[in-house]
């Protein structure tokens, strides 16, 4: 067990290292950041001085070395736009993104699993076919357009819900969360629903496909031959076997949600990491882009690891190796 953990941690660090290299290399293509730091009317000398200060006159490898050293200290530099440490900016905005992602995921799971089980167990019924067409529609929709439509109908036309922004927050475990306030929920509903669409559809389809395959297995017939009720056949025998692909996709979906949160936050002016990223891309605010990518890469790596551990809990045949 300890051996496995060490191996995995080394792997994760390896991946993060590769990501850091890629991010660094790509970012160096985005142009010379010196111009972001100095006033418009600087002289050539001042620019050269600034460049030396930023360490941009040194060889590429050295620059990377400095970068990596700083990263390991948690120092990603200061945002060009906000003049604050980039890391702090991300940390401040993380709870907003996380709560939206979690609410969206909860919506997706709570709806997708039962619907998927039903559609997989009774694939021929009209209701199942309707569910499948609906889910297909769900993955065909551009999420930002859905968000816009929801805003237009529910907020602009009918004034039922706020059209943008995050609600008031309460502090919990040192984080400011808006789901702890009633008005916070009014604000989070539309973005979370918008974000959940695609994941809901995908989870539903995976559950259904998994159920259909599992239902054809011999042990299902054997369970029926024992006289098991159809309910227990579905939820006890079949569903647990379906969970393995579902859990994989769940992990990937969590990553997707964080990625698509960038768009949702932009539409709803939600003050999370995603909106920060988009704004930073517009402003070519390199440090913030870098810290966002590294931070998010770290989250993904942890998610993948957790998913692998969850497998072993579900399926006794899988051993951690």
């Amino acid at each position, binding site marked *: 067990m300890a051996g496995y953990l060490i191996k995995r941690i080394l792997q994760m660090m390896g991946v993060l290292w590769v990501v850091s290299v890629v991010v660094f290399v790509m970012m160096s293509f985005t142009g010379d950041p010196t111009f972001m730091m100095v006033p418009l009317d600087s002289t050539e000398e001042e620019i050269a001085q600034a460049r030396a200060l930023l360490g941009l006159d040194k060889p590429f490898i050295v620059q990377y070395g400095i970068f990596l050293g700083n990263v390991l200290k948690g120092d990603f530099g200061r945002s060009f736009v906000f003049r604050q440490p980039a890391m702090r900016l991300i940390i401040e905005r993380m709870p907003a993104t996380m709560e939206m992602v979690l609410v969206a995921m909860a919506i997706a799971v709570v709806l997708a699993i039962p619907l998927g089980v039903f559609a997989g167990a009774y694939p021929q019924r009209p209701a199942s076919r309707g569910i499948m067409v609906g889910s297909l*529609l769900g993955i065909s929709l*551009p999420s930002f357009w859905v968000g816009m439509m929801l805003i237009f109908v529910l907020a602009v036309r009918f004034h039922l819900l706020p059209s943008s922004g995050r609600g008031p927050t309460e502090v919990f475990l040192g984080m400011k969360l808006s789901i702890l306030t009633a008005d916070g929920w009014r604000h989070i509903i539309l973005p979370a629903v918008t974000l959940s669409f695609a994941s809901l559809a995908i989870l539903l389809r995976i559950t259904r496909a998994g159920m259909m395959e599992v239902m054809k297995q011999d042990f299902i017939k054997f369970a029926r031959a024992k006289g098991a009720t159809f309910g227990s056949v579905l939820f006890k025998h079949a569903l647990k076997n379906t969970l393995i692909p579902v859990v994989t996709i769940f992990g990937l979906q969590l990553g997707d949600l964080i990625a698509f949160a*960038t768009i949702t936050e932009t539409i709803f002016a939600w003050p999370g990491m995603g909106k920060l990223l988009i704004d930073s891309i517009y402003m070519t605010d390199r440090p913030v882009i870098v810290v966002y990518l590294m931070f998010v890469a770290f989250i993904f790596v942890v998610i*993948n690891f957790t998913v692998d551990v969850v497998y072993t809990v579900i399926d006794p045949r899988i051993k951690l190796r």
Partner: protein
Amino acid sequence: MQAIRSVIENFRASEMFHNYRRNASAVAGSGILAFFLFVVVFGPSLVAQNPYDIASLDLLDSYKPPAWMAGGDPRYLLGTDGQGRDILAGIIYGCRISLFIGLSGMFCSSVLGTLLGLLAGYYGGRLDSIIMRIADIQLSFPSMLIALFLMSAFKTGIDKILIALTAVGWVIYARTVRGSTLSEKQKEYVQAAVVAGLPNRKIILRHVLPNVLTPLIVVATIQVGSFILIEASLSFLGVGVPVTKPSLGLLIKNGFDVLFSGLWWTSVFPGAFIMLLVFGINLFGDFLRDELNPRLK
């Protein structure tokens, strides 16, 4: 001639065609695709205005609502945008761009991915390890994010979008093809070809490749739809197509800016078209998947 006729006859008698005709969604899906094919090919000639021709635009016509509403203009069926551009014309041209990007991206990804998968599967060893390692690392990140990241470095441009999509899309082909290649490699016909002295290249191209293609058909179909959506998202965020070549996604972005003023037609219609297009692709892809999947039989 006889051969073609017999192929068509076999197809019409086949189970796949039978299932197709009985399957409402398959027929609907291909109907939608046929519609879009029509739009893409004949659309521009049906619409009076070329939205890229600045000279043909009239600013006085800006933000006209759809023709059936009060204040609408019968010349502009779906209304106009801020520059007086006909929304319908914009959509028609936008469809072409979106579809072009989706198909080209799929094509490039599939070629690259299949090639890498064949090499990895056939030759094995270090080449295989390297390719698969990269694939694994890449797979732990959402494609949208990778594409966004690449485009944030590249800024806008259709060619750059294609590079980004290829960088994201090759993985699934490589993995699938590698798996199939590995199992085909064990089969006797490959060993027979090796013994007969055929050069590797010929073995791969003429013997292995045709047998690994079937699962790719479904993947490729679905990927076109997914690429169209990714491009739309990138364009919406401003890191997709350039302003001079608006795809449907960029049209929606333009519409977003005025949505809060109640000018809904600038975003509703382009979005509906993307949805319809991707939906049609997915319907058809779903049908293909169910037909070509032996495990569900």
